[in-house]
């Protein structure tokens, strides 16, 4: 019947119109603007790495405690790294450190080199830094690693938006 068709058509239009409401756009945020802090890539001064709160705390602790041996330049001048044998890895040395698990990194920082069969020159920091602080240093290490650090894949962690 024509009336019914007419009515259906009207309804559909209205439904259609109401559905056309503008969707609020979620602004694509600039990772640097949304970062708590940043660090210049040690291998490329043009590349700025955004840091989260945790990574930024790791950066702070790194530049207080670790920079003396795990970087080539320190806030107070040349580094102590060249004085040491074996030479400690640079903190951004992804080729060496990416292969180590977070657990291993946590252990060597907490317990020191001797406990992990490495050089005794690496002191234990377990009585000086909290577990949270040590985790933040690891997070910072991962953030600045070159080549880039890929976290081990966890099963079922990918979300496919339908």
């Amino acid at each position: 019947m024509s009336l019914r068709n007419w009515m259906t058509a009207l309804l559909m239009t209205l439904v259609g119109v109401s559905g056309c409401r503008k969707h609020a756009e979620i602004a694509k945020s600039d990772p640097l603007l949304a970062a708590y802090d940043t660090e210049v890539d040690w291998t490329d001064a043009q590349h700025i790495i955004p840091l989260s709160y945790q990574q930024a705390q790791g950066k702070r602790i790194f530049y207080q405690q670790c920079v003396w041996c795990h970087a080539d330049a320190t806030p107070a001048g040349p580094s102590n790294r060249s004085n040491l044998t074996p030479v400690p890895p640079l903190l951004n040395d992804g080729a060496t450190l990416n292969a180590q698990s977070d657990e291993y990194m946590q252990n060597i920082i907490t317990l020191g080199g001797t406990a992990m069969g490495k050089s005794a020159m690496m002191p234990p920091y377990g009585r000086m830094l909290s577990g949270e602080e040590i985790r933040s240093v690891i997070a910072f290490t991962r953030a600045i690693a070159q080549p880039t650090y890929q976290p081990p894949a966890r099963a079922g962690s990918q979300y496919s938006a339908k």
Partner: protein
Amino acid sequence: MPAEEMGKLTERTRRIFAVSSVAFLAVLAISPFKDLRREWKQYKRSYLRFAQSRPDTKKLLADYRPDIDQIWLPGMSVVDRCTTCHQGITQTSLGDKTVPQPFRAHPSIPHHVRDWGCTVCHRGQGPATEVAEAHESTLAWEQPILPTRFIQASCGTCHYADLPQTPQLTRGRELLAELNCQGCHRLPGIDRPAMLGPDLTNIGTKVSREWIYKWLKEPRTIVDKDGNVTANGYETEEEPRMPKFRLTETELRGLSGYLSVQKAKPFVPYKIDARVVATWSKNPELISQGEVRFRQMFCSTCHSLAVTRAGETKLIGGDIGPELTKVGSKVNPEWLIAWLRDPEGYLPHTRMPRYGWSDEDLYKVTQYITTKLTDSDLLTSVPQLGKPTEEEIQLGHRLFLEKGCASCHSIDGLNPQKDFGPDLSAIGAKNASELEFGGAKIPHNLVVYIQAKLQDSTSVNPAARMPQYNCNQSDLDAITMALLSMKGAPSTSALQNLVVPRKEVAFHPTGSFGDVYERYKCYTCHKFNGYGGDLAPDLTYEGSRAQRQWLVDFLKNPQTLRPTLILRMPQFNMSDKDAATLVDYMTMVLQHPAANPSAVDAKQFTPAMAAFGKQLYEVKYQCQSCHTIGGTGGYVGPNLNNAGGWLTPAWIEAWLRNPQALVPDTIEPRRNFTEDEVRALTAYLMTLRQSIKPQKTASAAASHTATHGAGR
């Protein structure tokens, strides 16, 4: 009307009614439909689907309700509905970057979102249920979300005391103080020191009118558009203190004229012993000897000089005092002598210590400064100004008050206007509608306004009196951060109770120690009970740390302890009496309860213990990675060659047990030594002795300084 027609009409009316009632129903139906499709409900459903795609669905949906979620904290006037869409905010498994927003978990921070809500830190409109309303600035709500880059500002809103976790905010607060912003503006937590710019009461006795003209036109330390700082044309990292004002030629003439006649309290010229002058004035080594003494006294710990090495000229030295490369062409030589003998006689709050000068040193050093640290071209660009006219002086006087000079520089008898610039104690809470943008074509929001104002104050207000500051981007962001943190006193009493105030500290001892301490300005570089500079070691517990004799020897003839640190303790030519006063006080008062020097007797240490300690030092703990003994070891910790002649055994033992208990921010790792190991290491370190040889020959001292460089 015929029945047929009547029937037709009825039929038509009925049709119209039918259609319109259906249309009405349809319109009514839109309302629940629209309600069903509201933004937040879409996010709710989307989260449901998202959670189902995750392995830990059950945990993610434990608190799920299809309604609006809100965090209600009546005490803080927080009604935050942000969690309606940001549903995974407390789910630790959603912290990964691959999780789409708005479901990602909040990074772990010291405050929990359920206790604080969101808008306390992030701003935005808490009760809103639409994305745009909540995040953006609207007519009804002018506090948009704070860009995360500036989030540390929110920490500073309650934490007035500096936090280690917010380095940029701390830097911003430091910059506000260093750039002397508190000279004109009221800034909470940034106090006005006793002196901002130098007192100009006697400036006419120190420099010429031409020099003042040049300085006003182009201050020594200038910053280009990119934020590069140069002092006297040399690149430096020093913070510029005197900003550049926009002054016309007439204004320059007026101000320089007014200042050049400020001679209210002329200095008394000091006559250097004629015999000294007679002996040295003909000596060809006079200037080079003056330079040697200048270096030996470590003037460069506070003052920098341009040094050319390998074709590259750079400033080397500290930035506590002014850069001195061309000072010989600046100051009146008689003034210089009077100044060096008694700095406070000219400038009451100066940080320059009063050295103990012999006439010979005074002659050599001032001759060096006025002969070598000069630039004959310094004033060539300045017109011959001559004696100022009465009108020029009057104009200068008026400008001195009107331009705000008097806010930082005092002149006896001159009363500056109070609160010269706007009060900034609540600048961070200002709405965009409260700000003056003038004709500037920039987005109307607070962050953009602050940055525009800092970069060029005339861009938003052509009549702005604020001088020109050029900052690089990171400094600009830091200052913006500090200003954004200043939101005034918290609005509710619950928030007021949360404010973490800044600890006020000052250490001004009295008595004979206080006199010597003030004369040498020990606190400029050293900290005492949390008060003072951080250029040199904290001396709060120095009486526990160092042996008495070592302290006396050090004060009489300071030697550097850390090879990496090239800043040195100046040689004050301290008298035996002054040294004894300082050391007596330190050994009596500046003590740590855990390290009482008399509690540990060095006689208990046996050679066997020392041998065990040496082995621990070299093999088990490998302390040589940071400390040097002999010629080998690292440069991170202090050189231990003279540990036995320097440190007290009580200090070494307490230090080895827990370094941070003695010096909270020391980087010495806290080890887990056994008591036997502590004693053995102490026994070993106490065997290390090396006599400090005074720098006897001038040439040896000069070469020593040259190899280490004089600067930082």
